[in-house]
């Protein structure tokens, strides 16, 4: 048993060694194959010779299988300068493509002298060549090609083991080829007498394929490019946000935000009006007028429980509407959001587009009684007093008496109604106030008011809304009027004829007052001036 064990052990060792040698032989054979292929491609002369080290030379030539003879038919004669000739033994090996290769290998060589080679086949010279052995080096590719990260973006470090040839390390030239994995387009970098190279300018977070080959630089020694090493793959560092770019973009965005905020704040009111326009609706004052009866005022009247203003007597009175006179303009405090309007005013001056039609249906006769409650009267004297002293109304003077007054707001309300529609459907407020006529005359079509069309929008508010003497300041675009009782007739002569000023801009009408109460042009929105 011991004997068999020993035998088995020996057999095992022998097998291992044999296998190891076989692999090395296989490797060597493979290397030789690649070199042969390389030289067949790169060297036109025959025989093709290459040196792998400091003191060897391998020569070979190729012949077609059909014409090939046996190895002993050939003779390889080589002669160093000023020396006698020698012969090299030839071995034949089959090659791909129906060819045969004949090899000669010298194990002791002289460099820096011309070498003369002659190949004979049956005493017939078939090849003749003179060469310097130090000029035909064909090295093995560099070994241990490794890729590492340099710690910086877009970089990789390639390092390798140079071929171990004495005295020649400084004469070696390397070519590193790198490309993105999967791409065929790559770049090449050359480096001399080094064993590492930093590849720069790579894309972050990408896999790269790198390979390398070696050649002697050609000054002292020269030769052919070696075979490429097997490619090595490595991924570059993932992309990192450049801190400078990040900080700059943050600063820029901050500045832009601040600017936009500033702009927004400075145009706050304007934007608010645009985005969230105040739409006064008379709905609350007319219970169910719009919802139930769809704006049919007559019907609603017939079914309503009545309200403070809904006295049929008013609607059927013979009295004519009282013209409104603008006594002066008052600029008051900050605007308050308007709530509901007095019914008559709102009907006269409804703002919604969809309410235009409703208003049209409103009986113009109803508008004649634009009244206030009996207890709120302006006396003629009061009016005349104000008339004679056209000082701007102060807030207190206005509100001392609980008079009814209507404010007509001019607002820019951009709507895409064509101008034609405006003219057709909505009559400007001028109809309220006939030009060149006295107050005794009545205007029946009070109801229609020019609405939105990009022009000013009229909204009215009643003093009833502001029992606490707080008059809402609607800003400069408003003109205020005191409505006198119908019992008083006033005679006003117009300053000038009405004219509709540039409807495109939305100004309803312009006018000048005889009483020289200044009608200020308002920068925002459209001014409303009323003609008499």
């Amino acid at each position, binding site marked *: 048993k011991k004997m068999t064990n020993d035998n088995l052990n020996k057999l095992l060792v022998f097998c291992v060694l044999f296998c190891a040698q076989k692999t090395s032989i296989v490797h060597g054979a493979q290397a030789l194959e690649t070199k042969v292929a390389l030289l067949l491609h790169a060297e036109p002369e025959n025989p093709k010779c290459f040196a792998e080290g400091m003191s060897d030379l391998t020569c070979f030539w190729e012949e077609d299988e059909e014409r090939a003879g046996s190895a002993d038919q050939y003779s390889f004669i080589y002669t160093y300068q000023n020396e006698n000739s020698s012969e090299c033994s030839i071995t034949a090996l089959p090659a791909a493509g129906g060819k045969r290769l004949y090899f000669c290998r010298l194990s*002791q060589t002289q460099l*820096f002298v011309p070498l003369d080679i002659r190949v004979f086949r049956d005493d017939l010279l078939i090849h003749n060549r003179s060469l310097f052995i130090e000029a035909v080096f064909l090295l093995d590719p560099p070994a241990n090609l490794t890729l590492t990260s340099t710690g910086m973006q877009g970089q990789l470090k390639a390092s390798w083991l140079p071929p171990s040839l004495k005295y020649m390390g400084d004469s070696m030239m390397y070519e590193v080829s790198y490309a993105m994995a999967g791409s065929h387009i790559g770049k090449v970098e050359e480096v001399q007498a080094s064993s590492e190279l930093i590849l720069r300018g790579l894309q972050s977070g990408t896999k790269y394929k790198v390979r390398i080959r070696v050649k002697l630089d050609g000054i002292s020694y020269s030769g052919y490019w070696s075979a490429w090493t097997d490619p090595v793959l490595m991924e570059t560092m993932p992309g990192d946000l450049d801190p400078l770019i990040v900080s700059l973009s943050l600063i820029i965005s901050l500045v832009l935000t601040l600017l936009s905020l500033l702009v927004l704040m400075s145009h706050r009111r304007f934007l608010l009006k645009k985005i969230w326009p105040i739409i006064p609706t008379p709905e609350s004052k007319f219970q169910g007028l719009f919802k139930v009866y769809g704006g049919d005022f007559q019907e609603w009247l017939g079914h309503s429980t009545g309200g403070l203003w809904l006295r049929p007597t008013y609607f059927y009175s013979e009295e004519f509407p009282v013209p409104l006179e603008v006594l002066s303009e008052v600029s008051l405090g900050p605007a308050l959001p308007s709530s509901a309007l007095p019914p008559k005013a709102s009907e006269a001056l409804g703002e919604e587009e969809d309410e235009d039609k409703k208003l049209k249906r409103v009986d113009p006769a109803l508008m004649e009684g634009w009244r206030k409650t009996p207890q709120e009267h302006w006396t003629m004297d009061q009016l005349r007093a104000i008339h004679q002293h056209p000082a701007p109304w102060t807030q207190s003077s206005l509100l001392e008496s609980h008079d009814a007054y209507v404010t007509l707001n001019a607002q820019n309300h951009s709507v895409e109604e064509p101008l034609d529609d405006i003219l057709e459907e909505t009559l400007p407020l001028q109809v309220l106030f006939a030009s060149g006529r006295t107050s005794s005359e009545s205007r029946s079509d009070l109801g229609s008011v020019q609405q939105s069309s990009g022009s000013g929008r009229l909204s009215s508010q009643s003093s009833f809304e502001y029992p606490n003497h707080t008059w809402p300041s609607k800003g400069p675009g408003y003109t205020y009027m005191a409505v006198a009782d119908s019992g008083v007739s006033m005679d006003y002569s117009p300053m000038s004829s009405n004219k509709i000023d540039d409807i495109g801009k939305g100004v309803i009408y312009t006018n000048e007052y005889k009483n020289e109460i200044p009608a200020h042009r308002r920068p925002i929105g459209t001014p409303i001036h009323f003609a008499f």
Partner: protein
Amino acid sequence: ICDLSVLNHFIKEAWDAEAAMRACKDACSIATNFTVPLTRVDFDVWEAMNIEERAQEVQSGLHVLNEAISSLQASNQTDVLQSHIDASISNIASIRQVLRSLSIPEYVPPTSGGEDKEMQIVSSISELFQVHINFL
């Protein structure tokens, strides 16, 4: 001091000189023969040599080469060739200087030395000897 780039520079200049000589051909032919050193190197043999033997080989070779090129200098050559010749001589002098600084012993071969190698005078001298130098 022993910078290979310097030697490489000398070698390149020798290449240029050789190319110029080759182009010159007939106009630059010389009647006499020159004695030039052998340049062959067998590395196995070289490895076996000691420092003195190596020094001796190198120094004698340099000496002979210098002699040969200097003799060329005497004969009338074109300006282009003359510049090459001068450059080669100065290069050899530099190499000798380098060797001296490396404490490599100098050696002058005996004039009646057995090595009487004749090379292609005009064209290949530089090349052959420079290849010798490049090894060194």
